């Protein structure tokens, strides 16, 4: 019974832990190895890539990054200059490796073509008006 209580207490503590930090994406893009940064999106010219990526984003990413990728209190916008000016390869690298110590899980469980579809969607978003100025 004591162990059950301890479990419950630790579970409550862990609930408080699950809060990804917000402003880390830009730094992480910059950390991508050059070899990865140089990779181009093999689905760049696939007419369905952006739509499929949008569907995947809604399923796996929107909970934290917002339905329109505008960011939430849990994770940053995908429309910032940090992200939009990053190479597709750098975005793919962050997606694959996550930012584990800052709350973003690894997404290598999605097959590579699906990750590239996500990259295609993210790159299609463009900058917000705030970032354009």
């Amino acid at each position: 019974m004591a162990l059950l209580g301890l479990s419950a207490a630790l579970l409550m503590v862990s609930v408080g832990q699950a809060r990804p930090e917000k402003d880390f994406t830009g730094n992480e893009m910059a950390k991508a190895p050059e070899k990865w940064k140089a990779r181009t999106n093999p689905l760049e010219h696939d007419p369905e890539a952006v739509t499929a990526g949008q569907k995947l984003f809604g399923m796996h990413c929107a909970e934290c990054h917002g339905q329109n990728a505008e960011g939430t209190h849990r994770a940053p916008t995908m429309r910032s200059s940090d992200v939009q000016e990053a190479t597709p390869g750098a975005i793919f690298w962050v997606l694959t490796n996550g930012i584990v110590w800052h709350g973003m899980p690894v997404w290598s469980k999605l097959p590579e073509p699906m990750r590239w579809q996500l990259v295609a969607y993210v790159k299609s978003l463009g900058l917000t008006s705030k970032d354009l100025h």
Partner: protein
Amino acid sequence: MSYRLGLVCEEKSKAGRIFWVIAGLVGLMAILGMPGRAAAQENPYIVAYDHYMEEPGSLDVEYFSTFGTQRGGNDFHAFWMEFEYGATAWWTTEFYLDGQTTFHDSTLFTGFRWENRFRPLKHEHFINPVVYIEYENTSGADKILKEIEGHDVEADNGDPNSEARHDHDHELEFKLLLSSTHKGWNFVENTIATKNLSNDPWEFGYAIGASRPLRLKATPTRCNFCRENVIAGVELYGGLGDRHSFGLKDTSHYLAPVMAVNLPSDWTLRLSAGWGLNDQSHKFLLRWGVSREFAGFGDLVGKMFGGRN
């Protein structure tokens, strides 16, 4: 005598009721739909683990069943509920409630487990390790067969519930989970070491598996039973004896094709048909499971307790 029998029956039905009340509440929560959504991309394994953690703040509520054939006893249906929570991107914690029905015998609540998985490395590698630690407090009547270790054999589950329920297992279980993902394939290798907190020796076991989605590219439209949502694979698991008698002698082993369907509505269905590979194993284990992920559970609980936003 009849008074004592009455008490036992009452206790058993009470335990069963508690299990079903919890299961009912979880079902209700699922139907009413907690806020937030995040379609899971769950693996199809039922025994083996890959290196992927639950998404931070998400609660995955899972129900599993195992139907097992039993020589020298009655067949059984064991069931368990899992509450899997992503504490951080590198720590997943999970609470289990176990129960079983032995046909022509009785239904019992058989105990609980508390599991923690830690991811020690920051980035993805060719092989990704995860450290797994679990505490189990179960009775000898527990038959969920979530892992096979030591000299676990079919005959252990042949005793009537009235006898088996008097044995108690307090165990610490450690696993090293190794997992690789390459070109859509996932390969896992789990090594198990268990210490019963009484004076029993360390016991060992293993689970290995491989799986792959049936389609690697997503289609642009939402679909339920399309190939991209289906992951198929196989897992092999069994015992490796104990510290005094390490090896395959008097151990049981199973080979099971597995399949998961990840529905866009956050539900995951799993199915596994396992065959015993030697005479010490149950001939057949049919397992199935249903789970739903509740994204934003951590936020919801945080708000309830006046936490940060």
